[in-house]
């Protein structure tokens, strides 16, 4: 199989998994005082906290399901490391969207998830990636890259900005994405998934969940 092409498919914002409804909490961050100037630092903070947890979860879910196991414990480990209900809910919504698509494209990929209620996006993506034969490094880079693109494209909708500047932020964040992947690629058990929260992002995510003026779901 063409693993590189499959990664491109999964990373493409045109994949119908409701990616356009997500901002990576940057909508709330901008509403609460973050400036566009701060976005590169915001990306780095995410890659070292919430996104690191997501990537670690996906990598372990991939490993466990490829070995014939079920990812229930992996999903629980993710939930324990994601204290914000709003972030958990957003991830579960994305997990459901991805399951919906994968159920049409690769139905067998979902077998390990049968009976698992509302798995996180990381758990679903890791399971699907395992089925497709993607390596753990590719999977972790996919998660990091997607997070960076999600934030940057949302900023373009929210703040006046030259789109090339946002692409420049993405390019500049790539080494950090690679570093994230190196950190989690070898994980195999739920206990080793990094447990690094980011209270400020969690507070913003909670505030966003209750506002009635927003463009993005989360």
């Amino acid at each position, binding site marked *: 199989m063409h693993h590189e092409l499959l990664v491109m498919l999964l990373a493409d914002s045109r994949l*119908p998994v409701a990616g356009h*409804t997500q901002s990576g909490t940057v909508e709330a961050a901008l509403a609460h005082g973050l400036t566009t100037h701060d976005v590169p630092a915001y990306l780095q903070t995410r890659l070292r906290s919430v996104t690191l947890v997501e990537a670690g979860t996906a990598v372990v879910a991939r490993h466990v399901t490829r070995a014939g196991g079920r990812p229930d414990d992996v999903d629980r480990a993710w939930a324990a490391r994601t204290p914000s209900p709003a972030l958990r809910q957003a991830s579960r919504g994305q997990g459901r969207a991805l399951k919906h*698509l994968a159920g049409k494209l690769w139905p067998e990929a979902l077998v390990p998830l049968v009976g698992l209620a509302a798995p996180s996006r990381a758990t679903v993506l890791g399971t699907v990636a395992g089925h497709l034969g993607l390596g753990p490094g590719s999977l972790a880079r996919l998660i990091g890259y997607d997070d960076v693109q999600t934030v940057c494209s949302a900023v373009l909708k929210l703040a006046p900005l030259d789109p090339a500047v946002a692409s420049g932020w993405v390019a500049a964040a790539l080494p950090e994405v690679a570093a994230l992947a190196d950190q989690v690629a070898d994980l195999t058990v739920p206990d080793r998934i990094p447990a690094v929260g980011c209270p400020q992002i969690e507070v913003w995510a909670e505030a966003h969940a209750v506002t009635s003026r*927003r*463009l993005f*779901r989360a």
Partner: protein
Amino acid sequence: MPDHSPDSHTAAPSAAPSAAPSAAPSASPSGRPLRVGVCGPVGTGKSSIIATLCRELAPTLELAVVTNDIYTDEDARFLRSAGVLDAQRIRAVETGACPHTAIRDDITANLLTVEELEEEYPALDLVLVESGGDNLTATFSPALVDAQIFVLDVAGGGDVARKGGPGIERADLLVVNKTDLAPYVGVDVARMISDASAVRSTRPVIGLSRTDRASIADLLAWVSTTLDRHRSGVLVPQDPGPMARHVHAHQH
């Protein structure tokens, strides 16, 4: 820490027995309710039409509504405050500033919300989906809705219908709304409707006003016919298409 799934806090109240004719979910071959999309430019009266449908149909049918607001959940709140339907049955979807995408090329957020409502209210007969009002070109994917209503209003000018476009020409129903305003905006309603009919071949057009009972009856009759066709399995979702098809009316 007990960690509930996002949906678990909204347990469905036991469905009230419906007086609707053959309201059982098994009534349609697809085993699910009819899904009707309501789209059209900003402010033409989409939410008002949905409120009217809820008010008129709620006594006999099990209904739910999904709104796609551009920046707020105002449409959902308007409908909830109209008191025409249990607030839990009205859900808003955020579109990330992409109202077209959400009904056309990535329908996931809408589809999942519709499915969520269908799971929570198994006796549903009809789910109405309001698009984020934007412009003349947005239409629903047939993968999201079984039938769609495109809404224009007379205040947008009498020429709009004649100019056509995918929704105007090929939506299952075209509504020319707010006919009561025609005298104030200098629009000839009969002319506007005949212009619209001319570009729609046999597809129906209704001139509607909330103050005109007969026009509301026409709208309800269309919904009823469409529901019957859905239940008997003959309704095939039609795609108005993103582009106006060029029709050669002249002789070659």
